[in-house]
């Protein structure tokens, strides 16, 4: 168990590392106009790709080989997607999907 000073150093380092990942693009391309066309192109197309990465990231612990084979996640996502396409109400989709998932993992699987 590290001492108080060591714990403070670790927290400072976590803060520094995180800040580097957030500030680096803005330091490298000080003004948006100065960034090369290629970076602008990436800036336009990366957001949808990054959202996809986040969806996969949230589901990373699913094992299809072991029970429950990702079935609660699949049902949860189907509920979210079906409601969202039908009602287009963000809060309703998220709440219903989360509650169905919780019921599934607590009582069914």
């Amino acid at each position: 168990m590290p001492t108080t000073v060591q714990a403070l150093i670790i927290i400072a380092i976590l803060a520094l590392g995180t800040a580097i990942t957030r500030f680096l693009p803005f330091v490298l391309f000080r003004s948006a106009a100065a960034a090369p066309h290629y970076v602008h192109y990436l800036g336009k197309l990366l957001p949808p790709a990054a959202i996809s990465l986040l969806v996969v990231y949230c589901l990373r612990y699913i094992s299809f080989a072991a029970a429950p084979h990702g079935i609660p996640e699949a049902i949860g996502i189907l509920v979210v997607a079906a409601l969202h396409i039908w009602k287009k109400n963000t809060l309703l989709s998220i709440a219903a999907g989360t509650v169905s998932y919780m019921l599934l993992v607590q009582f069914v699987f």
Partner: protein
Amino acid sequence: MLKKLPAAIRAAFPHTIPVLTGFLFLGIAYGILMSGRGFGWPWILLTSVVVFAGALQFVGISLLTSVFDPLYAFLIALSVNARHLFYGISMLEKFSGTGKIKPYLIFGMCDETFSVLCSTEPPPNVDKRAFMLAVTLLHQSYWVLGSIAGGLIGPLLTFDTYGIDFVMTAFFVVIFLNQWRAQKKHSPALIGLGASAVSLFIFGVDNFIIPAMVLIVACLTIFRTRLARTGSS
């Protein structure tokens, strides 16, 4: 900016409710874990204010309780958060001209804030910069309050919250669908899904993010002439 902020907070609040729910529960979970390891609310307050990166803060609990190794902690911070590089590149234009609030907008851009900022436009009567500041501030305050609450009341909770973390998955699925509807071309979203799934399969849960990012950039670069010609938005 300060005068425009209350109106911007009113306009931004409805867009932050999903994250409010998610962050309160995830924050409470984090607070419970930290206090269980002997780090009370002042420590929780400190990390949630200065680090403000959910996944890394959870990993950080084990870094705080194992052998003191600052270099390892630094490398973990860089690799767990490497995805922020994508958000920065995506926001170069949106954040340009934001002046004094720019450093805080960059500092506070977690996954959820990035998702809301790149998929939501403020109403016409609300200042754009104040709106972005409001979303960032609200999200961070939910995280800070949730994690402190977890540290204080966590041990007293009796209701079974198992599975509540799905709220963040549901949130990103909704953002995904909203983006899907807004785009004419779906190839960037599909490249993102494919590259992430392939990397997860090859590199495993703990190491797939950076290969996935490299693969996404490689695909976008290889197909640049095609993707740039047809346009994505």
